[in-house]
């Protein structure tokens, strides 16, 4: 992977000269700096982050409608809204959508937008790769969702659950194309996540501002880094599982075919070796987000920074040693069960540390109950429920009663909704002004929060009881007489309350945007926050920072505004408006947009459909993908005339904004490295 686009400032004069002297590219790079082109072909990590968010919210609506359909079906005994087959498809797609197309990309949205900013970097290490991750995710998402209507409505939808246990996932028991869509779709999404993980790891390790040591990185950045490592190591395992499944289904291999002596537990092991770290992939970004929000609205630094970081890393490590707790009733021997039971319990330790540190951060603080803060407190309390119910089924003996009942459904919704999603909403309210230049309305925000938290508890709280009363998971209906009626009805009502809450969020965006026209601009730092992203204008200028930042402290930006006296008093030393960058620098060289990430990604669904339906489609997809790789290789390393309208008028003050004396030289020869890169990409594309 090469960085043609070294996102650090360059002497534009030099560069023009060099490009002129070495006309490398056979194709020009996209020119549009406004309108739709500026989004489709962008390599700007902020626009990519926002698009991750937009697409994820679109899929969130789809997944949410699926959830409502499930709750309508289960509201009363013997529900008739969905047929059993449709129900199985809907709950499968609900899980797959929410996990792979909503929570993961929403975390990616924050990671893309914030991680370079919090590091004080201009962009990620590989901007075009970053665009590729986005578009591959979008391609994979639409590919998966297209299963809803391809070959007829609800004909070829995955129907084996997100966990998709063999041998039920084999062609013998699931003869539609649905599970092929699952196997291929998740592989496409895996490519996106893997590319993104490599990119962000390198960014984190290599692109930090001067003085930004690892132990000065914000907790969010730390958690995101841990998540990228989890992705890096977890994705290949699910890739293997998906390949084996695809080989079985499409080409008659025998990995999960019991009639040929295969062992179905192979799938479970591979799936959960991925699947358990996946849980932390979903939750850790949210832990990071609220670790940023709580200090700001408590007016205190995060309590026990090093413990917060260490516990995040510990969760990441321990996450690899507990996968079999999903398999306590799968027929492992008692020794494995006991060992995994105990190892699972110890995950509670670093998690407990985090929860108590958040509380300790608030302790004695001056607390402003903004919507962002409310959501963050929501995470602390709701995730605690999810964590504690997790402890109750880490007790393997108890798990034999609880697993595969609604108790588990309650548990992981308290973790994923109560933990991850509420944290993401906290992040929305917190960083909205940074991303879009206006705050979300607090009044609507409070409605959003309270409806969502009340609806959430109404929906998922009763599921604990249903589970303990013996209601199995994944059943499309239940008979009267088992004591399930009342709480299912309550739960279904709660689902609509959640829906209202989420709808209010969208209303809030609309209202706030309208109101913002009559309000003064929010300025760089509306919350009196602590980390570097607040040190530049809102919305963030394309080049992030006008000059390179030299970091001295953890919470560097805060320390520029405030000083701690010896007696512990905090006094102002500067106003944010005075020290934050105003975004006026005009001579910052940025990577040019590119067509090829989008084109490359667009080839993948064709390959996917081709594998499932007709190999000729693979040829089309392969043509697009390979063509894009060639385009990628041969396009201009940079196009100084494109994308930066302000390029010409900087001659007078050109050098003054260059903070560091040893600015980079131009990497005009990167095309060769790029050639290699592209081949590697092809490898990834074909190998997962």
């Amino acid at each position, binding site marked *: 992977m090469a960085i043609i686009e070294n996102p650090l400032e360059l002497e534009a004069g030099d560069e023009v000269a060099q490009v002129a002297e070495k006309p490398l590219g056979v194709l020009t790079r996209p020119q549009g700096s406004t309108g739709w082109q500026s989004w489709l072909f962008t390599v700007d990590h902020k626009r990519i982050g926002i698009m991750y968010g937009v697409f994820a919210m679109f899929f969130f609506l789809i997944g949410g409608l699926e959830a409502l359909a499930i709750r309508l079906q289960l509201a009363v005994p013997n529900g008739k809204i969905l047929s059993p087959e449709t129900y199985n498809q809907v709950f499968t797609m609900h899980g797959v959508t929410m996990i792979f197309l909503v929570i993961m990309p929403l975390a990616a949205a924050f990671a893309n937008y914030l991680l370079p900013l919090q590091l004080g970097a201009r962009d990620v290490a590989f901007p075009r790769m970053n665009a590729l991750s986005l578009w591959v995710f979008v391609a994979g998402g639409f590919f998966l969702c297209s299963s809803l209507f391809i070959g007829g409505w609800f004909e070829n939808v995955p129907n084996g659950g997100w966990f998709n246990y063999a041998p039920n996932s084999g062609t013998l028991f699931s003869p539609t194309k649905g599970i092929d869509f699952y196997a291929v779709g998740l592989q496409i999404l895996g490519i996106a996540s893997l590319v993104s993980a490599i990119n962000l790891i390198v960014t984190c390790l290599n692109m930090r501002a001067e003085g930004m040591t690892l132990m000065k990185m914000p907790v969010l950045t730390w958690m995101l880094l841990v998540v990228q490592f989890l992705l890096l190591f977890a994705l290949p395992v699910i890739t293997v599982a998906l390949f084996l499944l695809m080989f079985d289904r499409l080409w008659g291999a025998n990995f999960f075919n019991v009639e040929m002596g295969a062992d179905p537990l192979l799938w479970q092991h591979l799936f959960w070796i991925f699947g358990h770290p996946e849980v932390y992939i979903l939750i850790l970004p949210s832990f990071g987000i609220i670790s940023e929000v709580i200090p700001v609205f408590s007016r205190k630094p995060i309590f026990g920074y090093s413990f917060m970081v260490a516990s995040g890393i510990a969760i990441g490590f321990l996450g690899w040693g507990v996968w079999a707790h999903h398999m306590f009733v799968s027929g492992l021997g008692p020794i494995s069960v006991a060992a995994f039971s105990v190892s699972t*319990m110890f995950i509670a330790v670093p998690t407990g540390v985090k929860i108590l540190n958040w509380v300790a951060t608030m302790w*004695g603080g001056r607390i402003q109950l903004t919507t962002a803060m409310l959501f963050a407190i929501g995470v602390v309390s709701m995730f605690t429920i999810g964590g504690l119910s997790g402890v109750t089924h880490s007790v393997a003996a108890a798990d034999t009663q609880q697993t595969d009942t609604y108790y588990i459904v309650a548990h992981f919704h308290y973790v994923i909704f109560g933990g991850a999603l509420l944290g993401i909403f906290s992040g929305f309210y917190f960083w909205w002004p940074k991303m879009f230049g206006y705050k979300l309305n607090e009044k609507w925000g409070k409605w959003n929060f309270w409806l969502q938290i009340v609806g959430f508890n109404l929906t998922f709280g009763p599921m604990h009881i249903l589970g303990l009363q013996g209601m199995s998971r994944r059943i499309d209906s239940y008979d009267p*007489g*088992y004591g399930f009626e009342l709480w299912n009805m309550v739960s279904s009502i709660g689902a609509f309350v959640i829906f209202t809450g989420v709808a209010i969020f969208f209303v809030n965006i609309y209202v706030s945007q309208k109101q913002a026209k009559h309000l003064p601009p929010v300025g760089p730092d509306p919350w009196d926050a602590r980390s570097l992203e607040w040190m530049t204008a809102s919305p963030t200028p394309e080049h992030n920072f006008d000059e390179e930042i030299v970091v001295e402290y953890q919470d560097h930006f805060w320390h520029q505004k405030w000083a701690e006296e010896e007696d512990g008093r905090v006094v102002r030393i500067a106003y944010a408006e005075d020290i934050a960058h105003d975004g006026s620098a005009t001579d910052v060289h940025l990577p040019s947009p590119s067509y090829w990430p989008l084109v490359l990604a667009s080839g993948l669904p064709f390959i996917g459909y081709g594998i499932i339906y007709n190999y000729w489609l693979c040829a089309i997809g392969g043509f697009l993908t390979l063509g894009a790789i060639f385009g990628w290789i041969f396009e201009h390393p940079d196009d100084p005339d494109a994308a930066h309208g302000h390029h010409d008028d900087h001659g007078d003050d050109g050098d003054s904004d260059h903070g560091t004396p040893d600015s980079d030289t131009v990497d005009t020869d990167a095309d060769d490295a790029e050639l290699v890169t592209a081949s590697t990409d092809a490898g990834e594309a074909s190998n997962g």
Partner: protein
Amino acid sequence: MTSVRNLSAVTKEGPENLAEEPSPRHTRGMRLRRLPLALAAGSALLLSACAGDAELDTLEPRGPEAETIDNLIDPLFLISFVVFFIILGLSAGVAIKNRVKGEYEDDDWPTQTHGNAKAEWAWTAVPFFGMAFIGVLTVFAVIDLNSEEANAYAVEVDGETMQWEPHVVVVGHQWWWEYRYYFDGFDVDAFLDEDHANPAKHLPPADIVTSGQMIIPAGQEIELSITSRDVIHSHWIPALNGKRDAVPGRIHPWKLEADAPGYYFGQCTEFCGLSHARMRMQTIAMNDSDFAEWVDQQTTPATLSDEDAAFIAALRAGDNPSPANSVQQGLVNIRQLCSACHLVEGVNHFDDVPEDSVDNIYKEANVGVSLRAGAAPNLTHFASRSTFAGGIFNLYNEDGSLNRNKLEAWLRNPAALKANDADNLQGMPNLGLSEDQIDDIVAALETFGTRPSATVIAETFAE
């Protein structure tokens, strides 16, 4: 929840046999157990709702294994609630107490605490040791649940007394459960050494094969060997023990025991495809004499009248006897139409059963050996069970009469009552039976086996 009662398997003993005293440990447990749930919603409403009739309640143990689990989890629920309310109280309390309304002032800064190593180590250590303690208890419970108790139980089969180590082979099918009893023992290891690709399709003939309802003697630890013939299922009788997956290609040991005679509901809990929701089972624990009687009935090959037996013999001899009544016509129909999948000893359990298309579908699908007579529930003692179609429909009405409407509807079009994909060998196909054929088959089915007792029939109704 079903109260603990003595069930009489046969008709001669009436409901006066019911013993209505739950053992003392249950009463104690129940009060304690309700407490956390009450806290969960923080309302008395919850308390009353939970007290309702949850047939599958996991917190009402009725056997030692379930009791072991319950004793472990109850205190943990309590601790969890305390911890939760501490965290909720702290976070909400601090948020409310320290709340600042409006914008921050410049001098509005609290003490800037960056951390406190002692406190942090403390709240690392406390959960660590707490978890270690729970871990030790868990390990003991896991060992306990996986240990086998060697015991022998005398069973009389064909006048011969056998020492049976109570054991049942449990086979999951899409979407029903099969229970096989081997009174002279079933050596799992030796069987697995035969190295069949899908062992569940090669199980040796058993003394008793029944489905949907597992009958056990009360007060005996029953070893289970759980496997599956197709996809993964999970066998779960919450009142008696936790669940264990039925995985094709593997045979998993598990056990359960009922303290007292009673009727215990269960549900398949591993997603197993289309009709996962409609794959249920019940365990009926009987006192020793009832169990002995049940074994006696079930081990008698067919429960046919002498005339019907003679009629079958004539059919087998190729004499083309004409059916004297509806039952005999039903027997003819069953032999012709049902034999591909269902086995009825004394009716079609012979070599001359005709090949059938359903069987061939299995062959075409390359699923291994012929599935003839074994792919579907054994019907030899069909009428002795109180449920059918995977434990989901009651075979008898509350007044004890045959649930004729349901049974006929089932024969008319099974998929209309229970989702299936018979073309793909999942579930019972619609055989396109005429109303006459259905009537005759029902008439014959009604003669297969001795009716369960009125008590069992009454307990069948979930309420």
